[in-house]
């Protein structure tokens, strides 16, 4: 207002953040530091990073919405007004100037208030809710009668649209969206993102998107900013960064995202994990995982600086790599390999006409699904939520009783675990084991890793001495001294490795994997996929691989079954199904995979 004298209102960026630092005073830890960026009016910027990169904390600090116990310093100007030292200005700006859309559509709405009234709560004073609420609902593509519904009566995609309408109710000039589509299905994700981008352009809002998915960022935003271990690594326009990366971390992140259009022999993954901000103090946070690191990388923190290649400054590009200008050209994309042909052998798993109908549900979860898995074969089952893929996995593992149909494991009937004898159940468990989606709830928090694995070895009648334990841990890429730790001390990727070790302790012939990598960061996902591929070779184990992610399934599956609403709509060799899909639903799924191009959302 008063300070924007010289430059004029138009030149003032919508957001200017300078030197933000977030600390936790009770522990003395610093979680992120020296984060600076600008977003011009009407511009869209994506902040990209894995968990622990500080991307969410950055915007929470910018908006003054940090969780309890955290403190931020640094300058924040929103719409030309300095707000970091002025809580009242912040409160005044919320809703009308800047608004936030959050990640999880299932928790972001008040469960006890009708959708329309929640939207109306955010309207500016004096606005007529009877006019404005239907208008906002129409803007996010929902009919007016949705206003009378409670959140629990709406699907995830609809809830996120209500969230968007509520975030827009105050008419903000800046919209921040924190992973707004991560919890949604692929096809819904594309719809919601395309909606957000359309609304952003129509309203000419500045837009900040937080995401872990670099390709999604390229497709959605004008500019991207990559963060790692609480610092900015690289900034540039989406098209330019997509074309050429000036930081090894950005390259690694991009390489770790599996492509949907071809199968790689090996998914490039960087060993190690994202360090805590303080663990990388006084040096480049990525140096320990970087193959290009030189001693100077460890003697000081590299600042994001303009990139100068052979004397020319690259417009709008910043990189925090000391060697930004001299990075070797990235290797050409790996050519694809062909998935394995099916083996003609007695199947290890045969499912015939499996049916399951949950009480109170309008549709069957499984309406007669048949499939086979040959020994050593990886069979992918893909579909969105509600397709029945998880119910299928749970039936095969005996966690759910099918209403009809048959499940044969190694030729033995395992349709109803409740009616099988102890010995038969034991035999079935030796043939098949399961790993689950959520690494945070899959392990008993009260038991050490060693106790969990020892139990798995005993259950299979194997020796469980310290050496056996160490061998098992090493087989999944974990150090032997991890046996004494409890799950709370492990990262998501480490927990999932322990879960895999627990499942393969008895060297089962079939591993049922229910979305085993969808809760993991891309770089960890690449590591775990690599581990699964390696275990498959070593133990000649078959897999039933349940996933919603076509790019992931492309990397690991030999054959595919595509499920839609409990029926199998397409099946065949993975390459054939993904290169030449026959069913329209498969084509829709394929189109929903972000490809990084600017016109993906159009």
């Amino acid at each position, binding site marked *: 207002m008063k300070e924007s004298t010289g430059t004029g209102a138009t030149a003032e960026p919508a957001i200017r953040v300078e030197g933000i630092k977030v600390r936790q005073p009770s522990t003395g830890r610093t979680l992120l530091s020296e984060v600076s960026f600008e977003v011009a009016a009407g511009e869209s910027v994506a902040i990209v990073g894995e968990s622990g990169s500080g991307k969410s904390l950055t915007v929470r600090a910018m908006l003054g*919405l940090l969780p309890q116990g955290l403190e931020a310093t640094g300058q924040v100007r929103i719409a030309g007004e300095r707000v970091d030292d002025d809580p009242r200005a912040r409160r005044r700006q919320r809703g009308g100037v800047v608004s936030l859309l*959050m990640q999880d559509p299932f928790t972001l709405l008040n469960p006890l208030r009708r959708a329309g009234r929640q939207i109306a709560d955010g309207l500016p004073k004096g606005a007529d809710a009877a006019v404005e609420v239907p208008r906002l609902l129409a803007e996010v593509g929902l009919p007016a009668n949705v206003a009378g519904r409670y959140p*629990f009566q709406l699907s995830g995609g609809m809830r996120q649209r209500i969230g968007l309408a509520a975030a827009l109710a105050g008419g903000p000039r800046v919209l921040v969206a924190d992973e707004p589509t991560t919890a949604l299905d692929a096809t819904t994700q594309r719809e919601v993102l395309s909606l957000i981008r359309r609304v952003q352009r129509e309203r000419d809002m500045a837009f900040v998107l937080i995401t872990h998915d670099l390709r999604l960022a390229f497709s959605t935003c004008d500019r991207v900013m990559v963060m790692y271990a609480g610092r900015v690594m690289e900034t540039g326009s989406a098209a330019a960064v997509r074309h050429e990366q000036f930081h090894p971390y950005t390259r690694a992140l991009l390489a770790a995202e599996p492509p949907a259009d071809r199968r790689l022999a090996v998914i490039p993954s960087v060993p190690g994990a994202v360090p805590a901000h303080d663990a990388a103090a006084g040096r480049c946070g990525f140096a320990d995982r970087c193959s290009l690191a030189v001693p100077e990388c460890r003697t000081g923190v590299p600042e994001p600086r303009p990139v100068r290649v052979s004397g020319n400054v690259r417009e709008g590009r910043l990189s925090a790599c000391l060697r930004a200008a001299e990075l070797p050209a990235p290797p050409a994309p790996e050519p694809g390999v062909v998935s394995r042909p099916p083996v003609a052998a007695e199947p290890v798993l045969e499912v015939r006409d499996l049916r399951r109908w949950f009480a109170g549900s309008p549709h069957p979860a499984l309406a007669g699904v048949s499939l086979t898995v040959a020994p050593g074969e990886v069979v992918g089952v893909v579909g969105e939520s509600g397709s029945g893929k998880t119910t299928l996995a749970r039936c095969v593992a005996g966690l759910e009783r099918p209403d009809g149909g048959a499940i044969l494991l190694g030729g033995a009937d395992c349709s109803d675990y409740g009616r099988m004898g102890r010995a038969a159940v034991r035999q079935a468990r030796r043939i098949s084991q399961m790993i689950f989606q959520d690494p945070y709830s899959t392990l008993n928090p009260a038991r050490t890793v060693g106790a969990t694995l020892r139990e798995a070895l005993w259950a299979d009648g194997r020796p469980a001495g310290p050496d056996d334990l160490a061998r098992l841990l090493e087989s999944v890429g974990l150090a032997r001294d991890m046996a004494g730790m409890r799950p709370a001390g492990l990262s998501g990727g480490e927990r999932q490795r322990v879960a895999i070790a627990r499942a393969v302790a008895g060297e089962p012939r079939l591993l049922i994997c229910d979305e085993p990598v969808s809760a993991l960061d891309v770089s960890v996902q690449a590591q775990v996929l690599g581990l699964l591929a390696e275990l498959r070779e070593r133990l000649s184990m078959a897999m039933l691989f349940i996933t919603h992610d076509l790019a992931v399934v492309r990397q690991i599956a030999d054959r595919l079954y595509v499920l839609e609403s409990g029926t199998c709509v397409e099946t065949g060799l993975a390459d054939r199904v993904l290169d030449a899909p026959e069913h329209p639903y498969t084509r829709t799924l394929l189109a929903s995979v972000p490809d990084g191009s600017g016109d993906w959302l159009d």
Partner: protein
Amino acid sequence: MAGRDRGLFLLRRFAGTVVVVALLSVGMFGLLYLAPGSVQQTLLGTRPATLETIAAIQARYHLDEPLPAQYLRWLGGVLHGDLGTSVRTGMPVADMIGQRLPLTLALVGYGALLALLVGVPLGVVGALRRGRAADRLVVTAGVVGLSAPPFAVGLLLLVVFAAGLGWFPVYGTGEGLADQAWHLTLPAVALAVGAVGMFVRFSRAALIRELDQDYVVFARARGLSGAAVIGYALRNSLVPILTAAGLIVTGMLAGTVLVEVTFALPGLGSLLVDSVTFKDVPAVQALGLLFTLLIVAVNLLVDIGYSVADPRVRFGGRTS
């Protein structure tokens, strides 16, 4: 659609309640037979056992009939308001209860209201000032209240406020509304002290949990006023607070037994104590049934409260 859903919901809950009451009435009737000595002996009480009186009791209670018929006859009587005759006073039990019920209900209502008006706001203050001095004070006060038995609190109150300071009467019920309220204040406070602790705990914990939810952050982020945001969270804390209220009211019904004796109030609690002391089985039976009914009614009200507070209960939706 919504109206029918609610009707169905209420019907289901009501049917369940009827079944519970029917089962409990069998238990209450069984008291007559579980009491030591013969049934005639029990019904005679302290009266002299002449042949005539025994014959009269045989005829009055149809003791020669089979047990289910006796039960149905008793139940029929109960349904018509005939709860039997007190062994101790010879009065109809229904009349005795009728005289004393209003006092006990007033006492419980007063106590619950006091506890609610003090406990919930304290819990809210604790949640909003989490971890600070005010919060610690509230939590400590809650624990002290919870651990104090009502009769001990009653005695303490009597000593300090009635005998010592003379602000309140030592015993009696008073005449007229204001005077009665004045007489009931100390007993109601004695009942409420523990309940305040419960309300503080439940409401504080529930509100703290809700304040951490995404929808609260989202509401703040899109510029809702502080009051509106707290309103969101409070509304969502209602179900645990209702649960606490149900537990508290039923607990208070039991607590009246001690408090009424401490303050010499002629309510159901003191009637129960007298009846038990005199082995007045018909009165104990009737009181037991009445307390059961009251507790069941409180639970039914809480269930209905849930459905009002949370549409997911009403529509049978899944709480995802």
